[in-house]
């Protein structure tokens, strides 16, 4: 079945991320001056304001920072509700948003905060594979 949810459109600034995703890799931006990782992609490092940024392949691992269960949604997501959204603390630093997989939206549990997660990629179109995070056994 065709992917029926919003499909992100890569921009020149974010193209390396989406190229990585298509290859099944989580590729993140990092500042070569202060060495800190930031998400989302920037024109300048938000920590030291250097313009010397690079892309690198991250571990694809992290932990749930916080989450919610969406009972109201629109478009393709409406058919999937309820579903769990979560902010993920990346092992390398900073945070990404995801729809969390591997949990039951019907019985939310505060213990999911801190759970270990791993990234996976779903092909939404030929060129855009969207990262989703899945809870792995704690």
């Amino acid at each position, binding site marked *: 079945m065709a992917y029926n949810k919003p499909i992100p459109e890569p921009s020149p600034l974010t193209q390396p991320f989406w190229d990585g995703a298509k290859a099944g890799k989580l590729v993140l931006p990092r500042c070569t001056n202060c060495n800190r990782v930031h998400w989302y992609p920037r024109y300048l490092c938000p920590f030291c304001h250097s313009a010397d940024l690079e892309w690198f392949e991250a571990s694809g691992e992290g932990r749930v920072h*916080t989450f919610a269960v969406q009972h109201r949604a629109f478009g393709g997501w409406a058919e999937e509700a309820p579903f769990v*959204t979560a902010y993920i603390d990346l092992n390398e630093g900073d945070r990404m948003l995801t729809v969390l997989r591997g949990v039951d939206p019907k019985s939310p549990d505060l213990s999911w905060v801190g759970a270990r997660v791993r990234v996976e990629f779903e092909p939404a179109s030929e060129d855009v594979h969207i990262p989703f995070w899945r809870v792995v056994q704690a």
Partner: protein
Amino acid sequence: MPGELSRAAAIVGAAEANEIGYPEKNKTALQLHIEAIKNVSDQTGIPISRIDGIFSAGWSSELAEHLGLHPKYIDTTSVGGCSFEMHVHHALAAIHAGIIDVALVSHGESGWSSRNIGGRGSGRGGPGGDPWALGTQFSSAYGLSGAPSNYSHAMTRHNHRFGTTPSDFAHIAVVTREWATLNPRAVMHSKETHPFGGPITVDEVNNARLVAWPLTLLHCCLVTDHGGAVLITNPEIARGLKTKPVWIAGAGENMSHSNMLEMEDFTATSAAASSAAAYKMAGMGPEDMEMAMIYDSFTVTAGITAEMLGLAKRGEGFTLWKDGHARPGGRLPINTNGGGLSFNHSGMYGMQLLVEAYRQLSGTAEDNNFSGLKGKQTKARSCIVNGTGGSLSTTGTLVLVAD
């Protein structure tokens, strides 16, 4: 003789983006902003981190977030091509007043490039807006839509960190509804104004339909129409009017992020910084506040903000409502109009806060069946007013005092 503001500040640098005109490679508006900002920082030797006031035609929160800044003065005046001259005027006043030291006035507009690429990179938001906007690429893909879908994450984190529960926050909805029963213009005033109006219980809040767990419908504000306006003038004019003045003793503003992706601590907002500035200007502190008008888009917004304003300890904001202090007759009445939760919330609720704070401090909060019923007028002589915008992103705080 020159006026007081004359020469109170100087323009110390001016720069442009790396390529302008018809760039060889299409550029985004954000990119043009950031290049120019980097260049003017290099030119003057003033690090970007020293910028504490941001002035741009609609872009200020995005720029601050992109640069990781938490500005003390945020101006997005956008009234056409003259906006930037106005920004300089406003910056002059803000620097003269000692609110900021370094003002950034920034412009980035991809009039040529965006035409070549179907509006992409223009930075215009909303449905049908810029698909390259970072929020569109990295948030919309995951089904978040509307404020409850975002704010719910803050309640979960608060529950995790402080051991609080959704039931604790439900007390905020219950007490706020009690105030609404004293306001005939509140949507949820009574069964006459709404089929589900009138008093509610904690159980009813807990058992209402889930919108975004842990938020049920009764943790969420209304969606209504509203129009409001205030007039502000100098003491001389204020003294000659038929209405009572309410004095602006303190004011402050700040922001921590624009997109919730960039919210470092989901249990804290920039209201800590904006209220610190407001208290300092007023020469007053939380202990001097006799009532509060706190933006309550959700129960969790009000609970966390009460903590940020210093009205309660971290993790204990909800106790102001649970222990009855915020109720009619309590020691610290809060949201005496019935709040965004039960009175009126049109999308941007800050004006409703101002109208009610004025009424309370001018003694007109129950002068008739229009602004309030008997029992709504408090004895408060001071009020802290805090507006929250975006996704717990931006805050503006006022300390208002009665004449």
